[in-house]
């Protein structure tokens, strides 16, 4: 198990990637680890490019930005193009195939999951795509414990949406169950 994770989420504003990053970092804290979450985003409220990064480590974290990702999640074609090259050779690369159709990453272990469509079709609302993605990501990487993840999600989401979000996590996890077992 790595003791230092560099995780990057890339997509567009409004997809909830920063929230996803925050939740992941919070889950790490719950697990008793150190975590730093940072982001960059455009001036647009919606629709501009958006990037969230999470560093998770057992000890102190110097630099807060990802240099080469251990885990990459991309949810837009632009993000895929930009960030796929900047991963470690053995990185986990998760691609939301709802939006990213033909980008061909050359490095890492690539997982294509229809995340946004799953959110809409299986959970009923596309806004939970970020939570589905977390289910996928943690399912694949175990970078935080599942319990901590659930706890972190429930602490962040609006009251009344707990069940929907739990379901979203599960949908994500289920989507990659087979792959994990296979791995």
């Amino acid at each position, binding site marked *: 198990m790595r003791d230092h994770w560099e995780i990057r989420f890339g997509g567009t504003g409004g997809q909830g990637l920063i929230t996803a990053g925050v939740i992941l970092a919070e889950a790490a804290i719950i697990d008793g680890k150190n975590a730093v979450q940072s982001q960059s985003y455009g001036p647009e409220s919606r629709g501009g490019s958006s990037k969230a990064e999470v560093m998770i480590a057992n000890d102190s974290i110097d630099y807060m930005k990802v240099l080469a990702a251990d885990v990459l999640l991309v949810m837009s074609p632009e993000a895929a193009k930009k960030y796929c090259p900047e991963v470690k050779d053995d990185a986990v690369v998760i691609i939301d195939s709802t939006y990213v159709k033909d980008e061909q990453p050359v490095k890492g272990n690539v997982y294509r999951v229809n995340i946004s*469509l799953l959110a*809409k079709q299986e959970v009923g609302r596309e806004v939970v795509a970020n939570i589905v993605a977390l289910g996928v990501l943690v399912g694949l990487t175990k970078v935080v414990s599942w319990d901590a993840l659930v706890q972190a999600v429930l602490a962040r989401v609006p009251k009344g949406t707990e069940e929907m979000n739990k379901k979203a996590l599960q949908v994500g996890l289920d989507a990659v169950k087979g792959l994990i077992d296979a791995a």
Partner: protein
Amino acid sequence: MAIPAEQLKSPVTVNLAWCKGCGICYSLCPTKVLIGNELSKAVVAHPELCTSCRVCEAHCPDYAITVEGGPKR
């Protein structure tokens, strides 16, 4: 089911590249020509019902709709 939009010469066309799926046009269209697709974007579902009133075009914040004919505004 309606005849697929692309098979009719429709007075109203949607530029999907600009449409952000806000739903204004299909909410306001008096004759329900337009509907939202799975990503909430506008699609011309009933071109035959279009009166060229241009309400959709006037209210599309993204200039994604063009209506041919109809009143000059």
